[in-house]
């Protein structure tokens, strides 16, 4: 079997493993629940957005702008769901093999470490994408019914950026997982890095130095939402605008996420290659 064949085998094996796991069903239930709530929200407030936003200034908002605001609100969920999903699927990917002693069996298989890690990475990415795509599918369906419109260009742009975001956050979780030998440490570390360390750096830089920490993954990922309305819900530094994010901002955020993907994946490949089954 060639390298590509081995990679495909690893990928299909772990993809099956992931979608049969409890984590997948937890995430599935969670995303269905959130989709249901957002569906209710869209039906309930489709004609009452000014009341929901607490003002009268948006009374005569044009239809297309109304859809943009709703898309922005829907996209808010996409900033966190991929993180949870990729942490569930990616964090234990390497550390669990060490902790559960399964590494003894896997490392002795006639499959290269690189193929093993890349196959696992692609499987974790695919399952996270499936979870996120279910939500995006709900969004498209609800908008079709409520606003009688097909998904706009910004919707597809947001979806494309979401895919890059999932690739980058999965890469980060694999890097952390390759460092630790215990699942719990890997889980907690990714959550701490993403939700605490990144936010603390962002707050310090923005409040003390008025500097927009564009290089942080959580800030870059907000582009998934900002392609609709350029207001970041997770950054203090962003001045914000009702218009969509500029092309410059889209390119910058995309490049930051690509850099996280490449650096995280290559670093985890090298660390994983040197790991020993203990």
């Amino acid at each position, binding site marked *: 079997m060639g390298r590509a064949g081995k990679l495909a085998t690893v990928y299909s094996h772990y993809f099956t493993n992931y979608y049969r796991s409890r984590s997948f069903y937890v995430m599935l239930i969670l995303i269905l629940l959130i989709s249901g709530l957002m569906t209710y929200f869209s039906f309930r407030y489709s004609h009452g957005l000014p009341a929901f936003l607490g003002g009268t200034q948006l009374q005569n908002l044009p239809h297309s702008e109304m859809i943009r605001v709703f898309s922005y609100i829907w996209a808010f969920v996409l900033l966190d769901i991929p993180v949870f999903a990729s942490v569930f699927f990616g964090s234990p990917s390497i550390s669990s093999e060490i902790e559960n002693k399964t590494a003894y069996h896997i490392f002795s298989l006639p499959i290269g470490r690189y193929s093993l890690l890349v196959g696992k990475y692609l499987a974790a990415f695919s399952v996270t994408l499936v979870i996120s795509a279910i939500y995006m599918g709900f969004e498209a369906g609800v908008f079709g019914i409520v606003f009688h419109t097909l998904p706009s260009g910004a919707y597809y742009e947001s979806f494309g950026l979401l895919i890059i975001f999932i690739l980058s956050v999965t890469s980060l979780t694999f890097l952390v997982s390759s460092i630790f030998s215990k699942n719990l440490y890997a889980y907690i570390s990714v959550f701490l890095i993403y939700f605490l360390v990144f936010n603390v750096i962002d707050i310090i830089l923005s409040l003390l130095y008025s500097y927009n920490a564009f290089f942080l993954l959580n800030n870059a990922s907000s582009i998934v939402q900002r392609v609709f309305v350029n207001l970041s819900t997770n950054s203090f530094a962003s001045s914000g*605008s*009702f218009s969509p994010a*500029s092309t*410059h901002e889209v390119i910058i955020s995309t*490049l930051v996420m690509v850099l996280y993907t490449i650096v995280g994946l*290559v670093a985890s490949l*090298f660390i994983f290659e040197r790991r020993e089954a203990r």
Partner: protein
Amino acid sequence: MSPAVRKILILIVAAGVIVPASYFLFTQLSSSQAQANPFSYVPADSGLVLEGQYNSTHLYAFSSNGSFGILLPFSVNELEIFANATGSTNGTYPIVSQNSTFMSQSIYSVRNLNLSLFAGLFGNSSNSILNVALQFLKINNTTFFASDAGTYGMVLGNLSGVEQSISSYSVKQSFSPYATQYLSSQSNYSFYYSPGKLSNISSLNFITGNISDGNSNLHISIDNSTGIGTNLIQRNGTVNISISTKPGNIYISLTGNYTLGQLFNYASPYLAKAGL
């Protein structure tokens, strides 16, 4: 393939992505920062530049040889949306229409603009920073022209002002490098005035002012040869006045409870010496 060769190949491929991506990121970032800097859209040769602040919202205005512009923190698209959304309560709707293109950038004409539209942003009183800017620039137009000013927002002014603003960003000859030197974003109002070469006030180089409640400063820069008087520190009621002079420079500082009129009263003898 040996593991070492594989490692080197992976590193080469990774570097092949990381290096150009980082370079491209850097260039995009520089361009994006310039787009987000309002002073990138203020012409370098502006004779008058004003920065006003109200509830952390900043407004920038410039004027030069009959051209003027005001930089507002929202796009032309947003102006249209919010103007139409709130127009029903004000009774008038601004009419925004495409006017022309200058250096590949669209210029729009804005008619029936009711400035009370911006009350939420800049205040509604006659002393609001927008009204002060309009009075400062002696603007009473009913038809304006507007163009998007990068990610900062938009420039609103007369046609030549908007064109000069676009040009200053495009050819990178803006007021941006001088802004931090002359203006303070911490003050309620901050201004720079330079009569320029065309003026007959030959002895005055420039005046800058940073004006806030309770603490204001004026800096008058004049020719070295002009007589400028002596240093002074005095207390007048609740107002502390400090005037210091160095060759070619006069610094006037007021603290306490004072009016703008008092500030300029203290400055006027020195402005008179400079020929104003």
